[in-house]
């Protein structure tokens, strides 16, 4: 009996139907890639300045500042959760480093380290609140978003008597910290901001984690079906808390860039940016429901974001309309993503 069953009956004629093209189509980032190419062609045709290398470097810079955050946010989304506090956390992080360094007259690197500890603690707190309360992460991080936004303003005003932090430009370690977080690198005559390289590095590391480590397996699993993951021994709570901490790490890095690019931080900044990060991740193919997506997709999403952001300026359009086009791009990208995936999975 077993001979008969393992033989021809098992060679199901339906197994071979997924040809290589289909497999490519089912990649989460494909829709975004098509969109990115289309936008690139469009802006190249309509805006003469767009194709100049210096403009391209500006586009990349804009993409990178959002792309670095999109890395953490996309991993969290694949893990099935949101972090609405990500935008203001960048500001909090920059403020902590700036205020601590200035008030205690420390080397700025001490402020940078303290800021890292504080920001990671904020991320872990988000995760713990989520795990303890069992509330949707949307609500939990909406609460921390509001609290952080208030604290940013309140603490800064109380300490400096102003809505911005004092300039730390002349303090010890500023130059070396600026080299790491906010310098410009000469690439064959074109200045490229160092954040572009960090953005690429973050994306590569995140992709490796997602696809080639056990942690990555767990991230997909907790986002795809948390109960099943728990049943086979995946530490669901620990994975989710780590993902919130990952967003916090990206927020810290972005905060350091903000601080060392301008030497001073406006305490009201960052509100609303959390949606841009989520938009990058969604355009890049992350499912809002979790369990599906990629860091490379989020990077392409951030690139689309940067192109729209700067392309409008180069095309001499009214920049007031930026959000309108961003909304349209988001809608188009998600519809394309959805259609592509439906077709590919059929």
């Amino acid at each position, binding site marked *: 009996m077993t001979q008969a069953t393992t033989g021809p009956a098992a060679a199901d004629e339906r197994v071979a139907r997924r040809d290589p093209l289909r*497999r490519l189509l089912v990649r989460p980032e494909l829709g975004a890639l098509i969109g990115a190419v289309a936008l690139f062609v469009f802006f190249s045709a309509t805006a003469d300045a767009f194709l100049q290398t210096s403009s391209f470097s500006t586009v990349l810079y804009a993409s990178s500042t959002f792309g670095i955050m999109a890395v953490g946010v996309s991993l969290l989304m694949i893990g099935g959760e949101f972090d609405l506090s990500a935008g203001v956390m960048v500001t909090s992080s920059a403020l902590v480093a700036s205020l601590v360094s200035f008030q205690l007259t420390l080397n700025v690197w001490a402020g940078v380290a303290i800021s890292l500890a504080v920001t990671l603690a904020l991320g872990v707190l988000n995760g713990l609140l989520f795990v303890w309360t069992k509330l949707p992460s949307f609500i939990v991080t909406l609460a921390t978003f509001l609290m952080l936004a208030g604290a940013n303003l309140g603490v800064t005003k109380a300490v400096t008597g102003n809505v911005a932090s004092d300039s730390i430009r002349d303090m010890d370690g500023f130059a070396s910290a600026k080299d790491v977080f906010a310098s410009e690198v000469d690439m064959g005559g074109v200045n490229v901001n160092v954040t572009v390289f960090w953005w690429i590095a973050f994306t590569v590391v995140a992709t490796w984690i997602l696809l080639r*480590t*056990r942690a990555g397996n767990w991230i*997909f699993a907790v986002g*795809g*079906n948390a109960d*099943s993951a728990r*049943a*086979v021994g*995946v530490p669901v709570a620990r994975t989710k808390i780590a993902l919130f901490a990952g967003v916090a790490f990206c927020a810290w890095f972005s905060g350091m860039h903000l601080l060392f690019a301008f030497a001073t931080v406006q305490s009201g900044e960052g509100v609303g940016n959390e949606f841009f990060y989520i938009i990058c991740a969604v355009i890049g193919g992350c499912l809002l429901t979790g369990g599906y997506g990629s860091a490379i997709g989020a990077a392409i999403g951030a690139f689309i974001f940067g192109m729209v952001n700067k392309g409008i300026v180069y095309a001499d359009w009214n920049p007031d309309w930026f959000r309108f086009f961003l909304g349209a791009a988001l809608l188009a990208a998600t519809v394309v993503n959805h259609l592509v995936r439906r077709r590919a999975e059929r």
Partner: protein
Amino acid sequence: MTALVKLTGVGKDYGSVIALRDVSLEVAAGQVVCVLGDNGAGKSTLIKIVAGLHRHDSGTYEVQGEPVAFSSPRDALDLGIATVYQDLAVVPLMPVWRNFFLGSEKRRGLGRLDVDFMRRTTRDELLAMGIDLRDVDQPIGTLSGGERQCVAIARAVYFGAKVLVLDEPTAALGVKQAGVVLRYIVQARERGLGVVFITHNPHHAYPVGDRFLILNRGRPIGYHDKDDITREELTALMAGGAELEQLAHELEATGSTATARALDEEARTLGLTDD
């Protein structure tokens, strides 16, 4: 041959509700024991005791001759008792091989996954059980219910299960898919595993089972070797013979003679009536 799993006079109460009473069951290697019963017969309670989710209140539970009292499914798993539940514990959007190794990933140092090994093993293990998945990278959600069930079983076997406990694996499946799973149960038996197969379908149980435990309202109403019982008798026991006859009498009283006669006839052919 010592039994892999042996229950003797096991009972379980939930507060004042007696969910299970005086159930005995023995599974040896290379043997399929079917637990049959209608809804509410106590099948779930029994499976939860065997799986380590609940502790029994009376009787003894032995694994390979040693009395045990599990406090978590992990304990049962460590002794090689793997339970495959109806909801299967798979993540639909993840590839088959990632699901296969989820929670027990094979690594090559520095946290790096041994992807080649896991892909190859998944394919080989499934092939050994008669499922030829050329593409183990497809999301497990694209497999049919029967195939998914088989992956879950193959997974349990690979990670060292000696006893497989299958909770209604054929309940939600079509005829053909159920056949795939039944074939798989036979494969598992031939590999020397003990299988506890919970079902409410005697037509699924009879062809693969070596022994049948029939439960009704928390009590065993039959425990038979395959030689002792025919498919018809098994079906009759399952259907709760007396109740079928009772229904026939009631229908006769209300005047539906044709239906009543048909039911009566059926009860007789099934050997339920005394005359």
